[in-house]
């Protein structure tokens, strides 16, 4: 394993200072992505800065009912937090659908936002990958691309965004607090991850900054939520296709609706057109199927992943059906 310098930061200012002038400097929180990729020689930090001593481990309810989550809150603690279970069930379900108990105990909210793709060509330093090495090409386009994206890809990159948590954040709506040398700024989670386009190595909006908090939008109430994740094995596996659904019903008519997808796109994918179509419709299978077809209308399969389109369609229909059911059960 490649050597690196190490610093332990006791304040956000100190952490930023340790990173200054070190373009390959890496913050470590849980380390589950970073150390995995350092071992594979995919990430090559000259310095690793341990941020675990920073005071970013609280979950706080703000006066306007938003939940401000410190970037170092672990995935486990967030998934089981009473306010998350009560008000943001989709977030809890999505987190618990990801990784293993051990990894969730280590992984943090900030780290989850920063996790890297599982594309095997990205993870192999001998393969061509525009994300890892800009301009080197993309072996996935002509290689084994069963796991790759059918939405949001480009002729440079079709790597899937791996996060379940971020799919839930896309549905709920959240603001990321980014602290840099010149102070703190806020970025909408929907704008944080970038599409690959011609620059797949530029994955997010983070500059010379540290994610310090994620603030969830006020909860939708009443609400039914469901996260459906389809994968090669029933647990501890990344999604082939996942769908998160949040619905509120008035009688049987759909009011609020959110429909993000995971496992099929190059970033956490919100289906705005399908959501608009659902508004005011009766919550039945016909409407859910129509929404699913619209959500996937632009899906572009590669040689080996056309199966993801009907798979995602089923995930959407099931997630919407389960969300509607959860709403009705909650209502009675």
């Amino acid at each position, binding site marked *: *394993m*490649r*050597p*690196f*310098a*190490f*610093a*332990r*930061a*006791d304040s956000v200012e100190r952490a930023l200072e*340790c990173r200054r002038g070190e373009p390959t400097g890496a913050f*470590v929180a*849980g*380390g*589950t992505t970073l*150390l*995995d990729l*350092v*071992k*594979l020689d995919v990430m090559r930090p000259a310095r*690793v800065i*341990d941020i*675990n001593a920073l005071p970013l481990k609280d979950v706080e309810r703000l006066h306007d009912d938003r939940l401000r989550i410190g970037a170092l809150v672990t995935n*486990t603690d967030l998934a*089981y937090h009473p306010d998350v279970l009560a008000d943001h069930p989709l977030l809890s379900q999505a987190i*618990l659908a990801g*990784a*293993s*108990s*051990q*990894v969730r*105990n*280590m992984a943090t909210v900030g780290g989850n936002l920063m996790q890297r793709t599982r594309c095997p060509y990205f993870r192999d330093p001998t393969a061509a990958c525009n994300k890892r090495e800009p301009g080197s090409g993309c072996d996935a386009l002509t290689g084994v691309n069963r796991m790759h994206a059918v939405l949001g890809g480009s002729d440079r990159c079709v790597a899937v965004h791996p996060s379940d948590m971020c799919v839930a954040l896309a549905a709920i709506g959240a603001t990321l607090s980014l602290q840099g040398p010149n102070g703190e700024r806020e970025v909408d989670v929907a704008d944080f991850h970038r599409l690959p386009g011609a620059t797949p190595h530029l994955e997010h909006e983070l500059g010379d900054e540290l994610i310090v908090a994620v603030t969830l939008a006020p909860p939708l109430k009443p609400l039914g939520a469901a996260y459906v994740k389809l994968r090669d094995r*029933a*647990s*501890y596996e990344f999604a082939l296709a996942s769908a998160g659904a949040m619905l509120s019903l008035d009688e049987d008519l759909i009011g609020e609706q959110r429909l993000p997808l995971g496992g099929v796109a190059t970033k956490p994918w919100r289906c705005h057109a399908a959501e608009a179509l659902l508004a005011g419709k009766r919550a039945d299978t016909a409407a859910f199927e129509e929404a699913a077809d619209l959500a996937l209308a632009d899906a572009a399969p590669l040689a080996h992943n056309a199966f993801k389109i009907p798979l995602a369609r089923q995930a959407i229909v099931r997630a919407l059906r389960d969300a509607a059911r959860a709403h009705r059960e909650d209502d009675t």
Partner: protein
Amino acid sequence: MLETHDHSPEATVPVRLTLNGAPVTVEVAPNAILLDVLRERLGLTGTKKGCDHGQCGACTVHVDGRAMNACLRLAVMCEGQAITTIEGLAEGDRLHPVQQAFLDHDAFQCGYCSPGQIMSAVALLEDPRVAGDVCTVREAMSGNLCRCGAYQNILAAIQDARLRLHGQEGDEA
């Protein structure tokens, strides 16, 4: 220029741990992985190296009471933390109830994954947020692979250990 708590790649960093209940200080390189330090520096070879990438769970230890993959953690990140390994579960010659249950239920073949399985099982049985039904236990244990396929007996051992520890039966789900 290096400042306090700032270490070059060649430097060694002192790390103070509470290891299986006893205070230990070990000097490690910044890139030393907890798993390797436990096995090669501290002589605790019960924790196993399987995939070395967080995918198999053979290296599971408790860090401040939480099950974690020792292969994905820098030793320097553990400053001040309490680490429990498989060697720290028994009390003298008396096995931990989960260890005893693994023996009683023949919950292994080759045994290579057993330390990790047992550490995960102990953690989940101590975590009141993890429900006791079989489906939940399977899910909570999914970070530990057993290539021999002793899963049925592992599950039986865990549910039996639950009875021994808490006196409550897991639901048959």
